[in-house]
């Protein structure tokens, strides 16, 4: 079977082959039986009855379907999808045999026609319901195309047998062979394993809520509309075709015509199936596939109308409809339903109620028309054109709800991106004010912080300055000092005499922050020298007096403690009320290493251009990085240009360069996006590229700035290829690693594992850039899920997302599918070979890796290569002993 598993045309993988073949053969036999029955039915009907009786057939079929639908649902619920199909096949076989024994009177022929249509609807529906439970969404995409060709193959077999038989015997004898085919299909269906088959839910479904749900769900109502429009178009085309055949051919020609028609149609369908369907499914995606049938039928109907319903054009139109319905149309329908939870319930409603009601309405309409006059073929062709165009329009609106449906099926929904601080409602405010009275200092401080960040610091009562906890007093003073309120002044001034030095300093700082000169003047006469000196300095600063040159030599700081308490307090206040030479003073203080952090934080608030070089030089330091970034962003364009110059200069210190991309992101401007895209695509340093990606991620998450898709797609392509290259190398080593159980080799494998994971992670981040509203990380997590349906949905969802990016994305989509698809490692490597080359064996792989552009990988591969030909003892015994000791 290896040819099957490995074929590109028919992508069936290990473990799927047996099951696929069984269901494939069930479909072949079922459709063969139906084709035989249909040929007999058509020939007998048009020979015995006028074409206009077809309209009554349509109505009868619709009513009959509505009657058997509940029975079918009940049967499926009770017995499961597989057993329901077996029972139905047996029943159809018996009834067909019964028709074989009857004389073909007008009534019998009419009944046979209705039965033939009903049985086909029932059996085909049940069959696809069964395979829908057997295969995941991702499997469906691969397997449904080839599976559907089983239907065409069955039709060819049936048509071929019919063609042969009508030459030598009566048309009715076809019914005997059909009976035999149905029996065989039932027997084969009984061989399909029950394991994995989901029994439809047993809860009774109420019609009204279900219809209401259908109306509210934009995806479901579109599916329903498509089902209705397609069946309406099909009914009109069918009537047009049969009326045309009846009016063109003699009754005795009908049997041979229908047999030949079926044969030609189905051979054509098979060729279509084998050469087009699978590749179309893979290339255009599910949504493109769903538009194929309405597009072709719109064109065909229009051509029929233009040609005045010429016989061969109408036959071709009917053939197109039939071929599409059983191949691309069927596959599209199955795939479109794949993401729907509780598919059986919704689908039952659409397939049976919506479809059949539409059919009945259309049939009744045609019947009404035929009662008064024979409708002109031209009118019918125009009707068909209108219906097909409407179908096309509805299909074009499927994309958004289709993706939304997958998103919801992947359980977590879209990401809540609104991380900004919102307004507080009354209940929240009450809760926060209550928290201010809590005994725990942490809770009180937390409440104050929340109020301050929501710009509601005014709600913090000044009376809180009566609190006994020192930490609460200090925090409250910090917050009050930064506001323009004055109600805290009297209580704050009392705290100048507080027993705690920290509180006294905090009170002084608060008055300095608030710029309350009268209070500072009073403190300038305080008994405590430090407070006095400090108040004087603050006053000088408030009055914008030029401060002495070197702040570290100021008299004020002569008695400062080892923790530099005074200097730190001064730095903070200077930032709150920056004087004209604030930056100069702050940079002077920064010459003392212990103050650098505080200076950076203050310069964040000053916003002075002369601080740019200093702020850029602080980017390597994690504690200061955030402040430095904010400070640069606050300065604006000059700082952005300075960062741009620094990053584009390869001579800039690496420890600075690697932090520039995310600093650039802090500007949140279109220019920042452009620079980050440029860095992500072309910087020589891998870490800079990665940080640029992270910076873009920040912007995608926190802003609505437009991020150009093309460079992101290019990066996706590059990372996907890197993933496949590393994966192929890893696979080649793993296949032979057992024979070379060496530490050096293990290190290479571990490094490859890490790098593969890294590429995977970057792919996720890149996708997140172009799909901001989706939780791509969760979708990628779902790719690793144990539940194969969850995995399949994730793959389909990713595919649908990527295809929405335009024509350029097709190649990327194909690459990503190779990355994420469920494939055995060797199979993935084999498929990737034409993209990333062949890693033939361990020696070849290590040789190639020893020339890799990544230094570490190159070194480790070179080392591993050097150990392959040597006895193990030479491999640094002491180190080997070291690394292989227990953890």
């Amino acid at each position, binding site marked *: 079977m290896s040819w099957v598993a490995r074929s590109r045309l028919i992508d069936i993988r290990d473990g799927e082959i047996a099951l696929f073949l069984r269901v494939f053969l069930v479909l072949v036999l079922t459709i063969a039986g139906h084709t035989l029955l249909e040929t007999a039915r058509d020939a007998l009907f048009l020979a015995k009855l006028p074409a206009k009786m077809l309209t009554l057939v349509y109505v009868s079929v619709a009513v009959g379907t509505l009657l058997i639908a509940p029975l079918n649902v009940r049967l499926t619920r009770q017995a499961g999808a597989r057993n329901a199909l077996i029972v139905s096949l047996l029943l159809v076989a018996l009834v067909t045999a019964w028709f074989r024994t009857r004389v073909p009177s007008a009534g019998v022929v009419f009944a046979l026609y209705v039965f033939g249509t009903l049985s086909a609807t029932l059996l085909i529906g049940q069959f696809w319901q069964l395979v829908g439970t057997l295969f995941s969404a991702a499997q469906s995409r691969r397997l449904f195309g080839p599976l559907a060709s089983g239907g065409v193959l069955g039709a060819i077999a049936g048509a071929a047998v019919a063609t042969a038989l009508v030459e030598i015997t009566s048309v009715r004898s076809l019914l005997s062979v059909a009976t035999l085919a149905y029996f065989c299909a039932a027997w084969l269906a009984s061989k399909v394993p029950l394991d994995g088959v989901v029994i439809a839910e047993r809860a009774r479904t109420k019609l009204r809520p279900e219809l209401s749900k259908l109306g509210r769900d934009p995806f479901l109502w579109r599916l329903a509309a498509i089902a209705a429009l397609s069946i309406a178009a099909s009914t009109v085309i069918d009537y047009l075709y049969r009326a045309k055949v009846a009016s063109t051919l003699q009754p005795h020609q009908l049997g041979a015509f229908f047999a030949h028609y079926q044969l030609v149609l189905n051979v054509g369908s098979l060729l279509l199936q084998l050469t087009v369907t699978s590749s179309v499914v893979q290339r255009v995606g599910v949504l493109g596939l769903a538009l194929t049938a309405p597009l072709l039928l719109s064109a065909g109907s229009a051509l029929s109308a233009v040609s005045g319903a010429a016989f061969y054009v109408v036959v071709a139109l009917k053939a197109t409809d039939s071929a599409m319905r059983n191949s691309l149309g069927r596959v599209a329908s199955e795939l479109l339903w794949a993401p729907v939870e509780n598919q059986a319930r919704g689908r039952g409603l659409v397939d049976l109620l919506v479809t059949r009601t539409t059919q009945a309405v259309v049939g009744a309409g045609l019947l009404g028309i035929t009662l008064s006059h024979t409708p002109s073929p031209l009118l019918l062709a125009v009707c068909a054109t209108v219906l097909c165009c409407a179908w096309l329009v509805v299909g074009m609106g499927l994309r958004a709800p289709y993706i939304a449906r997958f998103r919801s099926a992947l359980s977590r929904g879209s990401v*809540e991106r609104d*991380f900004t601080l919102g307004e507080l409602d009354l209940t*929240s405010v009450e809760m926060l004010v209550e928290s201010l009275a809590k005994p725990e200092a942490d809770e009180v401080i937390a409440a104050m912080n929340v109020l301050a960040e929501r710009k509601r610091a005014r709600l913090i009562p000044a009376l809180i300055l009566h609190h006994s906890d020192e930490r609460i007093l200090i925090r409250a003073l910090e917050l009050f000092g930064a506001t323009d309120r004055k109600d805290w002044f009297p209580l704050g001034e009392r705290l100048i005499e507080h027993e705690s030095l920290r509180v006294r300093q905090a009170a002084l700082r608060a008055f300095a922050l608030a710029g309350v000169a009268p209070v500072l003047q009073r403190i300038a006469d305080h008994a405590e020298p430090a407070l006095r000196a400090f108040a004087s300095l603050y006053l000088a600063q408030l009055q914008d007096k030029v401060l002495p040159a070197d702040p570290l030599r100021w008299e004020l700081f002569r008695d400062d403690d080892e923790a530099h308490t005074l200097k730190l307090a001064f730095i903070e206040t200077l930032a709150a009320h920056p004087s004209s030479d604030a930056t100069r003073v702050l940079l002077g203080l920064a010459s003392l290493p212990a103050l650098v952090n505080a200076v950076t934080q203050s310069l964040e608030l000053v916003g002075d251009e002369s601080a740019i070089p200093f702020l850029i030089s602080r980017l390597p330091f*994690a504690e200061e990085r955030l402040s430095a970034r904010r400070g640069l962003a606050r300065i604006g364009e000059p700082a952005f240009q300075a960062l741009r110059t620094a990053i584009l200069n390869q001579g800039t210190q690496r420890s600075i360069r690697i932090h520039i991309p995310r600093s650039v992101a802090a500007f949140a401007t279109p220019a920042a996006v452009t620079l980050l895209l440029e860095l992500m695509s072309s910087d020589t340093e891998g870490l800079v590229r990665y940080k640029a990606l992270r910076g873009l991620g920040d912007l995608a998450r926190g802003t609505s700035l437009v991020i150009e898709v093309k460079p992101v797609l290019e990066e996706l392509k590059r990372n996907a290829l890197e993933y496949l290259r590393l994966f192929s190398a890893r696979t080649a080593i793993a296949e032979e690693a057992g024979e070379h159980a060496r530490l050096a080799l293990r290190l290479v494998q571990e*490094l490859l594992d890490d790098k593969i994971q890294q590429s995977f992670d970057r792919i996720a981040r890149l996708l997140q850039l172009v799909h901001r509203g989706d939780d791509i990380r969760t979708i990628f997590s779902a790719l690793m899920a144990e539940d194969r349906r969850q995995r399949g949905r994730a793959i389909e969802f990713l595919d649908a997302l990527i295809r929405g990016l335009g024509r350029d994305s097709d190649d990327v989509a194909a690459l990503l599918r190779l990355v994420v698809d469920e494939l055995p490692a060797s199979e993935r490597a084999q498929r990737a070979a034409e993209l990333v080359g062949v890693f033939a064996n361990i020696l070849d792989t290590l040789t190639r890796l020893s020339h890799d552009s990544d230094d570490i990988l190159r070194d*480790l591969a070179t080392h591993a290569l050097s150990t392959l030909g040597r006895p193990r003892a030479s491999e640094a015994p002491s180190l080997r002993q070291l690394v292989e000791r227990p*953890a």
Partner: protein
Amino acid sequence: MTISDAERVKRELLLRSLFPSMPVAANVRFIELLEDVELAAGQLAFAQGEAPDRFLFLTEGRVIMEGEGQLPLEFSGLAVVGVMDAVLNRPRVRACRALEPSKALAVRTTDWFDMLEDNAEVARAATRNFATRLYDRWHELAPKLARHSTPPPGVVPKAFENYDKILVLRQAAFLKRAGMQAVASLATVAEPLSLNAGDALFEANNEGRHFYVVGAGLIELSQPGGFRITHTTSDLVGGPASFCNALPNYAAHALTDAIVLRISQQDFYDQAEEHGRLVRGTLAFLISELEAVQAVAEPRLEVNLGAAAI
């Protein structure tokens, strides 16, 4: 997921109280990840042996964590419960049972690690906070650990190439879960220092801006008060002290000829921003150290360190 404003503020208050140093943006994001949990008296929040897919922020009530052969841990008031198993990615060692009706907020472990990975400042703060809480206990009990008092024989190679550095770092406990990419990257920035027996690696009041990993030989860490432990190959000199800026409290010198790999903290955290597993591995190391010192501690010393994890 959407939550009401009042509920959001309630959660924010809780998180602000528990983690005052967490940046506002991280705090706001964290709020979205929490789910309410209510426990009746006697109800299990999680069972022994379960996967550690989430942990709890206890907001009201009292719970106990107990497991066969494990010392029971009781939590009340505001506390973080079950974070250790989550960090170590091991099945629950202890079950968690409510002793009275209790309320908690649960967070998925994967979400928490994602947040650490996306916020370098939070990750660094988490590491530092945990190490700080652990540090006092470690300082008191580390000399009692067998691995620090029974030095194994050391082999000191003459040259120390990149490959050798990788081998040493790969075995370092705090890098065990970091992944080869991070280890190899650190190896490229690790500076090998050759010491003769008796040479000082660093003195007290050093700047404390580096990590030191023993490449070969033995290094003794000491303090005038009598603290003295011995580090051997692949040990991080000072253990948790390195992660909470406490290394300046100690001096270190070579007991034998030795090679030490010096890595600047800046380089380490830069790498951590690129390799999320580095932070996770470091937290796991700190928890392993906590458990190691707990194993030699008197029962009375048992306290909840969970809240320090962020």
